[in-house]
């Protein structure tokens, strides 16, 4: 408790009280300003979202307040988009978190094998999702695809991967998992190795069962890292585009019409800027809400973690 407080006004110094007070701002504002600069367009986009604005109909451009949002709310396709996006996010983040944590635990011990693996595992992350999707599309091709081939050897004939409404979601989640699990693994591995050793040694001595150690010591201490990792994954998954678009363009039918795919089509193919902006604003609002929850818990956990000391 005291420690946190102290941490927070650490190095307090009143030489030129103004300077002291200013210091944190001086440190953080450059970063803020740089981003603000870019975010001016963000405001413009918000204005777009309040207009009837289709490039192909320049004369009918007009300010219509929340017209775009209203028509979205009335459109079942939109609600479908919301559901699919959330579903996709939940699935990818969930799977990748479990997998990433598991792998991190497997690699926790330091030896050259694990070190080697932990580098190699980053490889998928280094492949641009667009290209990764292209390769997966080839590997899942019914004729040339090595995966389709292996699957058929395993006895599953004509698995349809991205081409069937039943397996499309599975396929894109699979690719997403392949690409992004390493992200979580890295962060959690770093986190695991950052944990203070004492409690574990103690538990070891007392012969505490591993499962108990994991759930009562490891997991709680790891939670801040888990939150950070899943926060960023959530942000990216909500906005996933490359993988889904390159694999199925949102199909089959409307199986995978997530936010970004819809927004992309509206803007780039349908030139319906207003509607696209509205879509993206909604997406932005959702991510904003979700991450606020994350951050709140994150800060709470940090506070507790430091209070403990």
């Amino acid at each position, binding site marked *: 408790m005291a420690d946190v407080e102290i941490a927070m006004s650490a190095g307090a110094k009143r030489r030129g009280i103004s300077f002291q007070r200013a210091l944190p701002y001086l440190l953080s504002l450059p970063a803020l300003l740089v981003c603000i600069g870019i975010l001016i367009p963000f405001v413009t986009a918000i204005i777009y979202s309040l207009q009837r604005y*289709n*490039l*192909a*109909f*320049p004369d*009918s451009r007009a300010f219509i307040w929340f017209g775009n949002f209203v*028509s979205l709310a009335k459109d079942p396709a939109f609600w479908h988009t919301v559901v699919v996006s959330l579903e996709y996010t939940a699935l990818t983040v969930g799977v990748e978190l479990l997998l990433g944590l598991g792998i991190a635990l497997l690699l926790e011990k330091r030896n050259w094998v694990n070190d080697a693996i932990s580098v190699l595992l980053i490889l998928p992350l280094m492949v641009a999702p667009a290209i990764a999707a292209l390769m997966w*599309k080839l590997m*899942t*091709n*019914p*004729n*040339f695809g090595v995966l389709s081939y292996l699957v058929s050897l395993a006895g599953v004939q*004509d698995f*349809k*991967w*991205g*081409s*069937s*409404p039943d397996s499309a979601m599975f396929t894109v989640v699979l690719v997403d998992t392949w690409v992004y699990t390493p992200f979580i693994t890295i962060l959690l591995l770093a986190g695991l190795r950052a944990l203070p050793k004492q409690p574990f040694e103690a538990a070891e001595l007392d012969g505490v069962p591993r499962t108990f150690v994991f759930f009562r010591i490891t997991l709680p201490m790891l939670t801040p890292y888990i939150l950070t990792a899943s926060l960023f994954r959530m942000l990216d998954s909500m906005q996933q585009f490359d993988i889904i678009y390159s*694999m*199925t*363009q*949102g*199909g*089959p*039918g*409307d199986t995978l019409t997530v936010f970004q795919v819809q927004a992309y*089509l509206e*803007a*780039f*193919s*349908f*030139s319906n*800027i207003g509607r696209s902006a509205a879509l993206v604003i909604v997406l932005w609002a959702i991510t904003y809400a979700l991450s606020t929850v994350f951050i709140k818990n994150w800060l709470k956990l940090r506070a507790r973690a430091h209070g403990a000391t």
Partner: protein
Amino acid sequence: MSSRKQKDLIEAYYQNKIGRRELIQRMAKIGVGAAATGFLLNATATRTLAAGGPDFKKFKGKSIKLLMNKHPYLDALVKNLDNFKSMTGLNVTYDVFPEDVYFDKVTTALASKGSQYDAFMTGAYQTWKYGPARQIVDLNQFIKDPKVTSASYNWNDVTTGLRASDAWDGKAGSELGGPGAKQWAIPWGFELNNIAYNKRILGELGIEPPKNLPDLIEKAAKVSAAGKGYYGVGVRGSRSWATIHPGFLSAYANYGQKDFVVKGGKLKPAMNTKESKEFHKMWIDMIQRGGPKNWPTYTWYEVGNDLGAGNSAMIFDADILGYFQNSGTKEAGNLVYLPFAANPSADKPTPNVWIWSLAMSQFSKMKEAAWFFIQWATGTENCTFGAVNADLVDPVRDSVWKVPEFQTRLEKSYPGYLNQFQKSIGQSKIYFTPQQLFPEFTTDWAAMLQQMYAKQIPVDEGLDKLAAGLERKLREVGI
């Protein structure tokens, strides 16, 4: 060096003192290859364009910038670009982007009203957005102006259907190339949709080439049923307009079906007529029994890969797609091209076309110079060069198709290609109803086909749903 000799020879050729074959032989003697000869010839030929009136040197030393799509047609053009430079003294720079992202680039470049690009490659469909958006220029003003257009440009040499397809008055539903139509772009190279088949496979199975759609469906099914690892017919199925415009719309049109009809000045979806429903049933049936297993993710390159690798016996897609699969692939040399009238009661094919055209940016600061480029690029000389010396496979000018070298080249290694072209070109044009919502409704259409294919929705119901949805969208924008 022997450059003087070369000039003399070419002069001689142009004054008909010697024939083309003789020219090429004698050029070869002094160490100039056929392609190079072609280039030199073109240099001279270009002078006829140059001689046609306009002061092409007007912008000497200035420069223009093009936005281009990575495409064999572009490669053909680039090979000959120096001729344009020397003709006009203009400096030409160009940005090339992969097709996968090309139109995103164009859309944003135009939407931001940037003046960085003067002219760019586009399809006719895209101009239905760019035109009404006032992002591109009506080129009639240039074509009809002798001060900027060479007498030898011979605009009417460009295939009628294609010229019309790039011209639209901007009113949804009105006829392409009709009265008052604006020439939004100039055709340059195109593709029409017919059948290409693998004679080895059909031979193996003792199957004759298909005569019409019902026949195609049965034969495709037969091929797939043969269980030899290959399937019947390759067509696109991805969730985009690309699925609608090749084979599908060509056959659809051949059955006399329309996407929209105009009622009281307003568009009305026409996909849910009885005939249309029958057609859709046939099409879906064809894919389910004789199509690729992953049809809903099939884009043009999967269709092409399968044909070239001998996984599909036939494709109903762009002729040039089959053309490029006939070299450097496993099945190279086995491919045959076939004019295809889907409707048994139709006597001629009615291929829908994709036209690579050149358009001019409204925001260009060098419009006249840009026109010079477009004029040269789509002119007889350059098209001939591309067709003869490169892969400008489907040039847009009737005269070019008559060039003997081009014909012999096609005949030699692309059996039936010339024939399928000649049988089809007369009826080759865009069969879509021009309108701003083209991408929207074609995407919805494709998505609906995918649902029908997956048996998520019966064809009839699906088409009614589709029509209703489109109806609503049309009302929203009031067209």
